[in-house]
């Protein structure tokens, strides 16, 4: 990869160096930004950009706390790479070239697609597109809240999921027919649920759960994640997840039964309604899923 040596003006603010806050001077020394030719003003501009994104309207103390929590060295490296600093790119390649391939291999589980994915991401990191005469590097979106390696892993995962969904969406009918995929006939008339009270009681029961409990339920029953994966997502041990799932199911059933009975059902009717087939639910799952996916995809692109 040819390294561009164009120096990008990164003076986000107009504050002189001598007027910089002590915390900025301290973080500037700590970050090693001087070896990449970054000035204090440029460095402070980067910090202000981070604060404006994650803590808009925050007090100076809150901003300073946010800055202190940043991976300041990696943030400076990413911004220096984005600015086209040769030394920064050498350091970045030494540190993350192999890691990026390993990350892609871990995500795709296959060598050739991992190499393709990593190369594509390298191009984005370097910046192959220009905006207003400036090369746009994806490293410019790194804000230092997590590690640079973790950020690269997340970006690779995002790219992989986007590619996968786009590929699934664009697959031709002929190909799927050749693969033996059968298509059901279109639904003529939406099936109406016999009693709308079941959906309302279920929604009420789900709303009563904590967000993390709903995350655990969704990851286990919708995404088919393992207990270990869910434990790592939530940040607890897998045995805790197992116990929590059992407890949640009992609680959900109890809340739904209570909701149904409060809506005029007796116990037997509530139990029969709870065991009703999902085809009787007045929920258009396909539409909901498509809405969610498109919104997520567009929001992600928009943030970039």
């Amino acid at each position: 990869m040819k390294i561009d040596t164009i120096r990008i003006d990164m003076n986000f603010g107009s504050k002189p160096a001598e007027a910089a806050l002590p915390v900025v001077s301290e973080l500037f020394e700590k970050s090693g930004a001087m070896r990449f030719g970054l000035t204090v003003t440029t460095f402070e501009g980067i910090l202000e950009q981070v604060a404006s994104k994650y803590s808009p309207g925050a007090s100076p103390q809150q901003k300073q706390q946010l800055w202190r929590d940043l991976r300041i060295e990696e943030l400076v490296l990413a911004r220096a790479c984005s600015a086209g600093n040769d030394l920064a790119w050498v350091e970045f390649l030494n540190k993350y070239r192999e890691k990026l391939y390993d990350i892609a291999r871990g995500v795709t589980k296959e060598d050739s697609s991992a190499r393709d994915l990593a190369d594509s991401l390298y191009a984005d990191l370097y910046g192959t597109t220009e905006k207003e005469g400036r090369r746009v590097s994806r490293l410019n979106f790194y804000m230092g809240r997590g590690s640079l390696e973790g950020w690269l892993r997340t970006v690779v995962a995002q790219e992989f999921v986007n590619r996968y969904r786009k590929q699934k969406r664009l697959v031709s009918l002929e190909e799927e027919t050749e693969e033996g995929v059968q298509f059901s006939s279109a639904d003529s008339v939406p099936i109406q649920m016999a009693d709308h009270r079941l959906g309302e009681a279920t929604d009420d029961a789900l709303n009563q759960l904590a967000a993390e409990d709903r995350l655990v339920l969704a990851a286990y029953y919708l995404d088919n994640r393992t207990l270990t994966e869910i434990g790592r997502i939530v940040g607890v041990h897998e045995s805790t997840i197992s116990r929590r799932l059992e407890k949640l199911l009992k609680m959900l059933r109890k809340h739904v039964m209570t909701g149904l009975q409060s809506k005029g059902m007796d116990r037997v009717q509530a139990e029969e309604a709870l065991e009703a087939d999902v085809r009787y639910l007045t929920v258009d799952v396909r539409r909901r899923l498509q809405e969610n996916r498109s919104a997520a995809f567009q929001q992600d692109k928009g943030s970039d």
Partner: protein
Amino acid sequence: MPELSNSVRQRLGARPAPPTHPDADTLTAYVEQVLPAGERSQVVEHLAACDFCREIVALSLPALPEKTLVQTLPAPSRFWTFGFRWAGALAVIAIAVALVIERPGHKEPAAQAPVAKLAEPPQADSANPPKAADSVPVENIAPAVIASEASRTSPLSSSSSTRRPPTSGSSSDVASLTSNSPTPMPRVESNVRNEAMDVKEARDVKDALHSNAGPAVGGILEARGQPKPAPPERKGFVNSNLFLAEDHNYAYTNSYKDALQEKAKADAERAKKESALAFAVNPEADARKSFLRKALPTLNPTRLGPLAATAMSAVKSATTGSSPAAETLAGERTPGASSFAAAPARPPISSRAVASSAATITHDPDATRRAKTATSEPLHWRVQDGKLVNSADMNQWHEAYPQSDDIEFKVVQAQGHEVWAGGTNGTLVHSWDGGVDWQKLNLGDAAAGDIEKISLSGGDVQVKTSNGQHLISRDGGKTWAPLNPQGAKPETAQPK
């Protein structure tokens, strides 16, 4: 895990996602758990409703550390590590056991007579000079031991070459190291040697062998005017004790052993037939064959049928047969001969050992202790030719009481591990632990004559002397009193 209700599952998946998604930085901070609590709850709320972000978070989880993976793998080479760790110790133990089993000092004397018959002196050494390879340097101990062990199992045709006596006086030759005279000597037939040596000389030979005084053996034989036997080629046996112990029995070649074993098998089959025959005509002795062997000498052929009488006479003739081997073995308890008795673990190579339970008596002071250690069953006891002997299997008999006291026993009575034996001059010995330890008792001055009978009844011990005295002890032999004193004061005997 219990299944989620379909309706709940559907409603859970249909929950609307928030309009905005967290960026990569926020998701990375969430995965690395560095987000502030408030911001983390917002991300969790979003993840609960957004499968897209859940998938990204799941994919961006760092790989599990390799340390965890290594811990889950089974240890691959535990078994071999364990094996290598103990291989050396096992090899040493195996060699030690092999040396103990192959100790040549415990050859059965019965085997020497037929060996002597079959043994032939080696061919002239000048006509068949030893090869250079036969002279194994002392340093090559391990290969030589292997060669020596291999020669034991070699066929008859190769015995002459493997048992060739040494002919050179090379200092590296084991024979020259363990013998004063390196000159090859003609082999001496074992029966000649056994018959020629009297008891005292045989004891001297035995003492010399056990005291590691190698040259004394040659000296004794030379004093008898007999040529000193040339030691066999025990390549690599630098232990002079082992070598000298092997010396007296050098005539055992492989072919002779084979012949002996064949003869022993034939005799065993014959004895087995005779035992079965006697067993068939004696309905009272239908419990065990060992009991039959024990009871066989006491059977009176006149009380049995003619067929059993014939069988008994055949056994008796086999026991007191006129063959040189049987004659040599008839006196089976000469000290010199007894020292050459076969070890209990070795297979019997003598017909005498099979035909009669009184095969051999070994002088092993620890035999009783070992037998007691090996089995908790009481030993069998009897008096044979004035000696107190015991056996665990009615096959190998060991002298149970030290001969230094020079006691001639007359009677023995055992009850469990309590053993009482009496002999001449009112000698009474008692063992309370099955013959391991002994206590010599004195019946008192009034007791005279030999002890002819011992009776055990509960805790009482009664003895009868040749003078007609009946003495009883009710305290385990500490004090003795006349059984019917008729007003006489009981005499008291104290243990020595």
